[in-house]
């Protein structure tokens, strides 16, 4: 897919608009043929069955999106038609996001996903330009990119079944309270003699393994239970505060409640399986987009198993960033401080003037803003839909999510450089801690350019 050179004035942030959050709108916002593509995709279930790649028929017959309109305003595609501009290869100059790109990308992704063995390099290449929101594509692509689904399509159902039952087992084992555990232990030891002695002194029996509720022993299940209660309360509080503006996560609907319960269970199971790191505030923010995407998969089977899938993908995603959450590693070479200084270094290489102004002149310590950017993978800096787009790039870039993240952060700084250079400590800090909403595609484009510059 060849991209033409984009004139500079086009890249100015003047053109940015925030795309809407509503998924449904997204789905209909692409040109009419995409809806047919979506419909076709929904029918043929790219996830489970091999489908015929839809691109050829799609290319033939549709009113293409106008090439000349470069703005990303939100669309009334059915009305807006214009001269047909041939085929899938985007001739137009828009960096990404506008319809012809989307259609072709969606078609390409569907094609890729429907192959017997998914070619990861190809998948990454397409996905890094952004994944369209419809037809559950993002859900499948993320699962592939995070290594949850194997490349060989035939193995998908068996892998999924295995993982889901594993998760179910985790839940059963780890979410039991000690009363149930002791009862289970006893059942194996003594059989339940329910013959009630009609009267008389009740017989005393030995406590198994010295387990009693007030036990202070390290290995006592009761003691561990009470220690876990603190963490469970913490998790509960954080889950309730996740994305309070979204109906999916918070609100009075039973839907929101069940989603919150799922998030809680995932985090509790994770905390119990990882005693070294347990739960740290912020993990809920990293889990939320994963669960959202998987739960909104149009395929019902996938959506129902979203909890188990999110758990494993969460583990995988977090594995690259675990060290950021570990307090003891803060000052080490893998901890958050070192990552932040890498970002600083990166900025210095690419834009020395800005770096100097930020860190030396105005003394804005990168820790003040970059800490949240990095640990929470930019989920808090942009609205939800934008952060999903950013995550597309983060997850699909072959350099790995951490490197990509640093590039995106650097791009974020460069995009507002004019304002930063003109500002002092207070205004700069205010700006960076409340990063203005911007054109995500443009941001990712600049981040991409940073890579090629560095390698030159």
């Amino acid at each position: 897919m060849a991209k033409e050179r984009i004139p500079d004035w086009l890249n100015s942030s003047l053109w940015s608009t925030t795309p809407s959050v509503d998924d449904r709108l997204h789905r209909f916002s692409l040109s009419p043929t995409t809806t047919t593509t979506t419909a076709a995709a929904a029918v043929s279930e790219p996830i489970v069955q091999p489908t015929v790649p839809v691109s050829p028929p799609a290319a033939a017959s549709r009113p293409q999106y106008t090439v000349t309109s470069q703005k990303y305003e939100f669309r009334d595609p059915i009305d807006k038609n214009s001269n047909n501009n041939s085929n899938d290869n985007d001739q137009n100059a828009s960096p990404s996001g506008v319809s012809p790109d989307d259609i072709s990308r969606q078609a390409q992704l569907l094609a890729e996903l429907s192959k017997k063995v998914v070619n990861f390099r190809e998948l990454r290449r397409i996905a890094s330009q952004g994944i369209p929101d419809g037809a559950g594509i993002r859900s499948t692509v993320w699962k592939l990119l995070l290594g949850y689904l194997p490349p060989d399509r035939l193995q998908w159902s068996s892998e999924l079944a295995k993982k889901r039952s594993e998760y179910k087992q985790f839940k059963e084992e780890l979410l039991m309270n000690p009363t149930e555990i002791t009862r289970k232990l006893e059942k194996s030891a003594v059989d339940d003699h329910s013959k009630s002695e009609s009267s008389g002194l009740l017989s005393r029996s030995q406590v198994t393994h010295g387990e009693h509720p007030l036990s202070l022993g390290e290995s006592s299940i009761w003691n561990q239970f009470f220690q876990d209660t603190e963490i469970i309360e913490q998790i509960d509080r954080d889950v309730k505060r996740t994305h309070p503006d979204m109906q999916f996560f918070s609100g009075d609907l039973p839907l929101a409640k069940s989603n919150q319960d799922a998030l809680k269970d995932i985090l509790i199971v994770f905390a119990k399986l990882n005693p070294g790191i347990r739960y740290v505030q912020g993990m809920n923010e990293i889990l939320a987009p994963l669960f959202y995407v998987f739960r909104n998969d149009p395929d019902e089977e996938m959506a129902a198993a979203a909890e188990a899938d999110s758990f494993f993908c969460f583990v995988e995603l977090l594995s690259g960033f675990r060290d950021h959450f570990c307090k003891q590693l803060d000052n080490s070479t893998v901890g958050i401080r070192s990552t932040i200084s890498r970002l600083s270094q990166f900025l210095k290489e690419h834009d020395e003037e800005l770096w100097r102004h930020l860190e030396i002149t105005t003394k804005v310590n990168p820790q003040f803003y970059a800490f949240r950017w990095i640990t929470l993978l930019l989920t808090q800096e942009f609205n939800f839909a934008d952060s999903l787009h950013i995550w597309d790039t983060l997850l699909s870039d072959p350099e790995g999510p951490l490197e990509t993240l640093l590039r995106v952060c650097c791009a974020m700084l460069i995009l507002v450089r004019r304002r930063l250079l003109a500002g002092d400590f207070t205004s700069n800090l205010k700006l960076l801690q409340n990063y203005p909403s911007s054109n995500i595609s443009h941001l990712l484009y600049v981040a991409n350019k940073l890579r090629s510059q560095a390698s030159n």
Partner: protein
Amino acid sequence: MVLVLAIGDLHIPHRAPDLPPKFKSMLVPGKIQHIICTGNLCIEEVHDYFKTLCPDLHITRGEYDEDSRYPENKTLTIGQFKLGICHGHQVIPWGDLDSLAMVQRQLDVDILVTGHTHQFKAYKHEGGVVINPGSATGAYSSFTYDVNPSFVLMDIDGLRVVVYVYELIDGEVKVDKIDFKKTATASAH
């Protein structure tokens, strides 16, 4: 899974200075949901101490209690069980199981927690179960000096109760447990 502490007959400061240290180290706040106290604390400091362990505290009056506002007996419901508390010095003969069974029927409870004898007992009869947690400090009683400090922790889970008995014997804490179930129809008489 509700943890209920049954404790009593401490007789602080008259007959004992304090709880045994081994007991004190085990009784930490945050674990117990309710405390049932049979009486004879005797002073307010002990009341305050129990309050720090758990805000939900139920006490009945023992004959040496300095606070005269505690009731003679009390009933409460925890989960599926009705519990009754009575110190026991009012029930004559002291410690007689039949008389206590009468009290239990009068209060209409599944579990009666009573004290005064400073001896642990767990007894079942048709009307329900009588539990005597003994004396938590090992204070001498009206009939004997030979008292082992003891208290009881009940784990109420649905229709099943696991009673953990904590006794201090020869300086070591011994824990036993007793299991019983409430049959659906077995509420008194």
